[in-house]
């Protein structure tokens, strides 16, 4: 391919694609889009594609596919018509029809594109601002997250924690003869910790299985021994009171 800038060849407009080229040819020939003289248009199409190739312009496969399609339709038209019974008479018509439909659709969108092009230059452009919502609200005090919450709500929430501890869900769902001592240790300690003003020994013993009572008693003895729980009995026959000691909280530190 030689580049002779002094003698430029025929100026070829850039086609948007094979349909664009085909549409241009049809318009140049001033023929009805529904009645394309296929033979002539196909030859012109192939000519232009050759020219494009010789000018080193990008000829995408789409051009070649359509060229082949046009030539095929042309060849079918040139061949003597086979007897109607032998060949599907609709096939050739179908190919043509499909091509025309695509061209009509493409032409419509091309016309809209032209209108848009006109709008782009004539109507001019408006600009928005970029809105920085965070910046707008920078000085706005966030709404009080405690709005509508009273101390009683907080207290009710705390009671739920206590209730759950008293229920001992963890213990309940374990097979009685499998209650691990450390599970029970945590259960007893949790309940004592939630009663800083003292918990009655009788309250600690849930009326459960004999095994559960034995294990919780063993857990309590362990906690008394390690100094996490303190027991007091004011008079000989009064209830034994259990208190959490400062050491009670060290248990949970080890947990982490």
């Amino acid at each position, binding site marked *: 391919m030689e580049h002779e800038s002094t003698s430029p060849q025929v100026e070829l407009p850039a086609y948007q694609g094979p349909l664009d080229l085909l549409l241009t040819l049809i318009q140049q020939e001033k023929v009805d889009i529904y009645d394309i003289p296929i033979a002539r248009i196909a030859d012109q199409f192939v000519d232009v594609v050759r020219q494009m190739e010789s000018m080193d312009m990008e000829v995408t496969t789409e051009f070649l596919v359509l060229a082949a399609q046009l030539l095929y339709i042309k060849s079918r038209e040139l061949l003597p018509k086979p007897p109607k019974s032998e060949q599907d008479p609709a096939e050739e018509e179908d190919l043509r029809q499909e091509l025309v439909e695509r061209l009509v659709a493409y032409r419509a969108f091309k016309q809209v594109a032209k209108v848009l092009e006109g709008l782009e230059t004539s*109507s001019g452009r408006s600009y928005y601002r970029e809105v920085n919502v965070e910046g707008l609200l920078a000085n706005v005090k966030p709404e009080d997250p405690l709005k509508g919450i009273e101390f009683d709500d907080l207290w009710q929430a705390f009671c739920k924690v206590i209730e759950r501890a008293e229920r001992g869900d963890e213990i309940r769902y374990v097979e009685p003869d499998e209650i691990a001592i450390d599970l029970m240790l945590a259960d007893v300690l949790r309940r004592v910790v939630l009663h800083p003003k003292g918990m009655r020994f009788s309250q600690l013993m849930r009326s459960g299985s004999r095994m559960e009572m034995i294990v919780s008693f063993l857990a309590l003895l362990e906690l008394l021994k390690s100094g996490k729980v303190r027991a007091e009995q004011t008079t000989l026959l009064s209830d034994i009171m259990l208190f959490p000691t400062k050491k009670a909280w060290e248990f949970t530190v080890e947990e982490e």
Partner: protein
Amino acid sequence: MLFREPETAALEALLFVAKDPLTPELLVELLELDLAKIEELLYELRNRYAIDSCGLTLLEINGGYKLGTKPEVARYIETLYKQPAQALSNAALEVLSIIAYKQPVTRGEVDFIRGVQSDRALATLVEKGLVKEVGRKEGPGRPILYATTEQFLLHFGLRSLDDMPSLEMASLSEAEAASTEDSN
């Protein structure tokens, strides 16, 4: 002949800070005025912006309102942004037309209608914010679906998609059927 000054001021400020166009219904709620009053205030603002020394304009987009700049001063803003207005290519305009009418639409469907690959033009449109991804089409490969944006309406001075030029074609529906078959 002014009236309801505070609400007019509030309306203007709301339009100024609005990210999305404000619908009359939302304005009714925010300003605690009835629809007729909102219309009056909008009319007043529009009037105020009509003078030549005003660079703002009331934009109506998809039935909502927001503030924008007048097209006459666009070149100053483009200088500020150091973005000389670049006209869209023919390919981009074609792709845009197809998406505007057939949205949500896949790239394959656009390619089929144009008879040529549209990936570069589509990428440009997405980059310019005129087109956006809006999901995926059910079916093999679940291709991305594209639609036009509000920026698209603004760019072409359209109030809504109904303002688009009419699409003249007898056999669009058939072509549509064909293109759908093709992409599946």
